[in-house]
């Protein structure tokens, strides 16, 4: 079974993602010490809390995270775990890891913020992560900010919430989702299963 490190950066509920990965036959391990990232077959940065606090708590994992990426190990960032992969966020006016070029900005005027609830995916291009997912399938979103990648070709799916926003961004072994697959019932489990399938095990 693929050992999947879930990074615990001290910001709350990791039980859902842990249980969901078990449900799709992964072998999740909650890791709060950066040294323990080595040896993982895949890494998940879960999505809880605010950008600034998240970055502060994640910074000690920085070197190991870059090693993981360079080694080609699959990584999945969820929600805030997606945002921290970008250059900079308007939330907390704070720099991210810059693994994907682009910024994180606030949802537009005229919609209720946060976006909270189930929204449809529009699939832009083929992706192993989205195998078995159909255009129009619903996923659970909770966020006030969204990612704007410089390279639009990295966007594999969008969702419409006042603006057509990046719901799934993928670059090599980095996968990032704005919604919460661990809260998106059966369709979310399919995505996590696909992610577990990208590991070498």
């Amino acid at each position: 079974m693929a050992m999947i490190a879930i990074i615990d950066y001290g910001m709350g509920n990791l039980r859902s993602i842990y249980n969901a990965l078990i449900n799709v036959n992964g072998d999740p391990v909650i890791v709060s010490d950066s040294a323990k990232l080595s040896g993982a077959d895949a890494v998940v940065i879960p999505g809880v809390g605010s950008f600034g606090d998240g970055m502060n708590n994640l910074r000690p994992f920085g070197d190991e995270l870059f090693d993981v990426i360079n080694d080609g190990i699959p990584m999945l960032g969820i929600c805030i775990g997606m945002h921290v992969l970008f250059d900079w966020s308007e939330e907390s006016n704070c720099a991210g890891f810059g693994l994907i070029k682009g910024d994180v900005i606030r949802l537009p005027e005229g919609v209720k913020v946060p976006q909270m609830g189930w929204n449809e995916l529009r699939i832009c291009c083929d992706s192993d992560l989205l195998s078995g997912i159909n255009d129009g399938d619903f996923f659970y979103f909770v966020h006030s900010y969204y990612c704007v990648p410089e390279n639009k070709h990295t966007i594999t799916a969008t969702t419409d919430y006042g603006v057509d926003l990046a719901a799934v961004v993928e670059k090599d072994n980095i996968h990032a989702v704005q919604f919460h697959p661990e809260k998106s019932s059966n369709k979310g489990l399919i995505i996590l299963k696909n992610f577990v399938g990208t590991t070498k095990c």
Partner: protein
Amino acid sequence: MLAKRIIPCLDCDLGFPLGRVVKGVRFKQIRYAGIPWELAQEYDNQGADELIFLDITASHERRETMSKVIEKTSENVFMPLTVGGGIRSLKDARTAFNAGADKVSVNTAVIKNPDLLNEISKYFGTQACVIAIDAKRRYEHKTGKEMVDTPQGECWFECSLYGGREFTGIDAIQWAMEAEERGAGDIMLTSMDRDGTKDGYDIELTKAISNSVNIPVIASGGCGNLEHILEVFKKTNVSAALAASIFHFGEYTVSEVKEYLKKNGVHVRL
């Protein structure tokens, strides 16, 4: 486009080892509806968008039972889970989150100490913080209150505590706006005039609150049939509708409700 949410609410009596879901019928008789995590699983299969577990016992020794209920539920049910009833401190909130809750719902404790709302949203995020407002109509003119026209006459809405047993003098519309500023991410709005009656949601209350804030509002209290749910989505801009008894006793499944809504032009997840 974001779908309108259908949220079954599980009122949990935790004076039993596994807890049990109950529903008051006409305020007094209590009917037994099932074991919380089993019902939760059933609602997931039916396509519920979210679940709310309310501790109606809300005494301290029962908190452990709620943790077990949430732990057990979150093993198999992958949708947002909210815990409410008896959350009085940051520590209570943390206990709920550690058990697997995604949001906590607070009412009494934050009316008494509004700063707690700021603290919960600061530590756990606005998305994790649901403010429950239990509002009752007051047909009297009072200065400083937001008066609203209704078919029954002009009224304002007063916030109540302890399931409508105590009143605060606080205007629900003003409190909703303050709660948004303090970091609430969702408003669970219950009409104390309609709760348990099956006469339908209080449309004027729901409209007044959801037009006053920019955060999602969940309509609650009074749902007795499919038409009531359709009505609240057609006449107000609420994000979600909550119901309890129509689901617990098998009158309708969540999927039946959603199919009906979709047929009538409401955007739902099917």
